[in-house]
């Protein structure tokens, strides 16, 4: 299918659209048009379960009246003027149904730019057949890795988005985005015992992230088989050492979501808890969010409100120094937008989301993190996590008992939990082993999932972490 925007000639259509938006009898209106192209491959062993290639065309309109928004999304690019009119009507209806005026949205600079993907290896230049063949090799390799490996499930996706953003202020952003990722899941079974371990990959510009995974698959197979006989973890409080992957999930789940300002505005209790300047952790703790890390899945030079990315320090020197904003939340809190308004695709309005959330490296060597731990847990990798603001929980993909400063045996079913505020203050060492982990999962919020995000971090040592367990 041809790109209809290109076919119509971009300049003429841009002027027409901007003229249409400028004529609307409302405070503000924006239009986003998208052409999305996705390839999804799923294999069971070497057998194809799903090989899809799909192109979607659609868009949305968001209009604002008195701080209240009307939002309309649509498939195809027919009837744009009608969609704009409907969004305007919904915004005016929302304003009429409400009692109080809202704070004005923070102003955004008028920008006109094009953002292209800085490709290393463009996945669209790799044929579907070559992608399938590579994944089939991994399936074969995984099944042959150990007799106890009974199943290999392989998942791959690449999603290319070509977006045009217009607003009634005169901004025009033409932006390309690439997101690719996936996993190779190895399932070991011996009688009634089942265990699994996976290899995950992701990138925003390089199909090379999918290549050369043999060693990682072999290692994952070995770990899955080892977990078959692992005893169940005993619940209770432990000193834990978490690897860079899990530390990144911790930064994202335990603190990053709390820093999203849409969870703070109009909530005096949260604003008091998140008062800038509050001490949150040790003096060498530095957590920030960035959209500038090309190649990471959180790379986002311009957000979905047409705001250019800013790096945002969240904790620096152990103190809370910033938060993540959309134009709406920035306006309410009288701060500057940060470029964190993101939408999964055109069927959603942008909301405040993280990009690449980073814990800066410390100076403790990996071995030093274990010093003096009589009985603790070393947790590595993650199968997901969740937070409600105050509390968090994340599932470690692997866990090991630490006895007298040494890793002694694998354990299964480690769920690390705690209070965000207390746990940050219980970080007692930050590793020097900073790692740029890029996985194939994503972040979920308000029904928008999986949004591509990244988290880069070193290992951490945390005291008094509550770990769930059936025993």
């Amino acid at each position, binding site marked *: 299918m041809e790109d209809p925007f290109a076919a119509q000639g971009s300049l003429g259509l841009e002027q027409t659209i901007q003229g249409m938006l400028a004529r609307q009898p409302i405070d503000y209106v924006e239009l986003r048009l998208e052409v999305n192209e996705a390839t999804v491959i799923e294999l069971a062993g070497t057998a194809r379960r799903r090989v899809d290639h799909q192109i979607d065309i659609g868009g949305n309109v968001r209009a604002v009246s008195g701080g209240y928004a009307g939002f309309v999304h649509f498939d195809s690019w027919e009837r744009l003027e009608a969609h704009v009119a409907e969004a305007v009507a*919904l915004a005016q209806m929302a304003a009429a149904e409400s009692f109080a005026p809202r704070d004005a949205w923070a102003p955004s600079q008028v920008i006109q730019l094009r953002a292209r993907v800085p490709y290393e290896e463009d996945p669209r230049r790799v044929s579907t057949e070559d992608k399938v063949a590579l994944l089939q090799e991994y399936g074969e390799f995984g099944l042959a890795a150990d007799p106890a490996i009974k199943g290999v499930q392989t998942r791959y996706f690449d999603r290319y988005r070509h977006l045009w953003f217009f607003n009634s202020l005169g901004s025009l952003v033409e932006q390309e985005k690439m997101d690719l990722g996936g996993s190779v899941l190895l399932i070991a079974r011996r009688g009634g015992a089942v265990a699994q371990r996976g290899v995950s990959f992701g990138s925003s510009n390089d199909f090379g992230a999918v290549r050369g995974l043999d060693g990682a698959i072999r290692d994952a197979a070995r770990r899955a088989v080892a977990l078959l006989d692992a005893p169940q973890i005993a619940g209770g409080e432990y000193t834990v050492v978490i690897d860079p992957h899990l530390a990144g999930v911790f930064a994202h789940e335990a603190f990053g979501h709390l820093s999203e300002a849409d969870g703070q505005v109009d909530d*005096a209790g949260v604003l008091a808890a998140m008062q800038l300047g509050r001490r949150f952790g040790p003096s060498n703790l530095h957590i920030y969010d960035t959209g500038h890390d090309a190649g990471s899945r959180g790379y986002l030079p311009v957000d979905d409100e047409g705001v250019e990315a800013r790096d945002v320090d969240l904790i620096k020197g152990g103190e809370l120094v910033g938060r993540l904003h959309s134009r709406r939340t920035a306006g309410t809190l009288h701060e500057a937008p940060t470029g964190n308004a993101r939408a999964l695709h055109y069927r959603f309005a942008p909301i405040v989301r993280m990009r690449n959330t980073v814990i800066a490296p410390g100076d403790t060597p990996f071995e030093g993190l274990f010093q003096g731990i009589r009985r603790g847990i070393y947790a590595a990798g993650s199968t997901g996590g969740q937070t409600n603001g105050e509390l968090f929980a994340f599932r470690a993909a692997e866990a090991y008992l630490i006895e007298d400063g040494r890793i002694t045996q694998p354990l299964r079913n480690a769920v690390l939990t705690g209070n965000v505020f207390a746990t940050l203050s219980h970080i007692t060492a930050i590793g020097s082993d900073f790692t740029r982990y890029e996985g194939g999962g994503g972040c979920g919020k308000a029904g928008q999932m999986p949004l591509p995000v990244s988290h880069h971090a070193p290992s951490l040592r945390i005291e008094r972490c509550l770990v769930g367990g059936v025993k």
Partner: protein
Amino acid sequence: MTAAGRGAAGPPALQEERLTLHGEALAVDVRRARTVARVRHGRLEALEHGYEQYRWVRMVSEGRVGSQGSRAATWDELTEGAREAAPRGPLAAGPLSDLGTEGQGLAGEASPPDPEPAALARAALQMDRALGAAHPELAGQMQVHWTRQWTRMVDGAGREREWQRTEGGAAASGRIVREGDFWTVGTQRWRSAALPDPAALVNHLETRLAWGARIVPLSTGTYPVLFLPPVAFSLLAPIVARMSAPAVVAKTSPWAESRGSAVLSPAFSLTSDAAVEDGPRSVPWDDEGTPAGRIPLIDRGVLHSWILDRLAAQQMGIAPEGMGFAAELGSPPTARPSNLVVTPGRMTWEALLTAFPRLLILEGWIGGRPVNPLRGEMAGTATGLYVVEDGAVLGRVKDAVVSVDAFEAWGDRLLALGGEPQWVGGGMMQVAPACLPPLLVADVPVARKS
């Protein structure tokens, strides 16, 4: 296909195109209109309206199955794409669909009219104001939505079926933050042909706010725990994982050879029910064109049926049972039940609360998903854990982790099922909506922070 328009209740006007199918083939056209009102922290945040259309074609070409779907492509492009995809697809193992020979399908003549967007906004604001008046510190989030979806299917023999369904849904939640204590409550409701009663959601939250007004101590230990439907639902995930393709096909499921065997408590029966009232997936056909009915999955503890999509069933030599559903509009059907229905027990709410002198109620937790879906061990941080003594709720517990093995909870440790089921589900990572009662489980470990 016939013309799309059905007057006021018809799908959004989209250009109709010619569709010609031959041989073993199925075409599906789904259109959806959805309106949402969102209220956040006392203010109407947005009114949203969306139109979506997704069409896909599945066909057999030279013995293999190819499919192609899109929100934008023409029928000709989809048909050609499916034909081109077939050499890469799985081997065909039987007919691609079963649209029947009778004149079936729900044309939607009795369908209710769509409410105005302003009505949704008022319902959301009504909930927010009712809660805010009684609890000024509560930062509420209310959402009310109305969805209408039209589905049409046509096969290569020219059989055509179409139906539509509506859904009204409401969700209410709130948070009170005091000195680092984030106290969160929430609930959701939906109905198939009307908006839920806002007062029901407000009453639910009022009850939880009363239950949790006091923080009470609790020691680490094991307790009888009453899992309310939102949490009990997460305990179904490992059960479904063990019964579903591809774990059954690949025999990575420990139940891969257990069909006809007792696997869980005789008090537990689970059905995939596409005919239940108000079910979000109550439909005459699944998304693959297979009649979807009431399929017992586990009958009094005995494994009765697998959860297989059409192709997996045919590969295993089993007649497809209508359990091929798409996770969301725009994704292909995979093995999923329609509506999961757990047969309720007989115990009243009062009887459950007085079953032990002291027990816990768990209605909310975070992280409560299995590390390994085929192994039922789960642990989650409690966000809605309440202590009950002599039938009275004393207060809520903080900083606690509840650990449970789902197969034990639905097996040897299942003490009783309540008699009042509730719909839950519809979230981002859930395999199917479910209607299930509370379940009382013995000896559940609860770890507290010292």
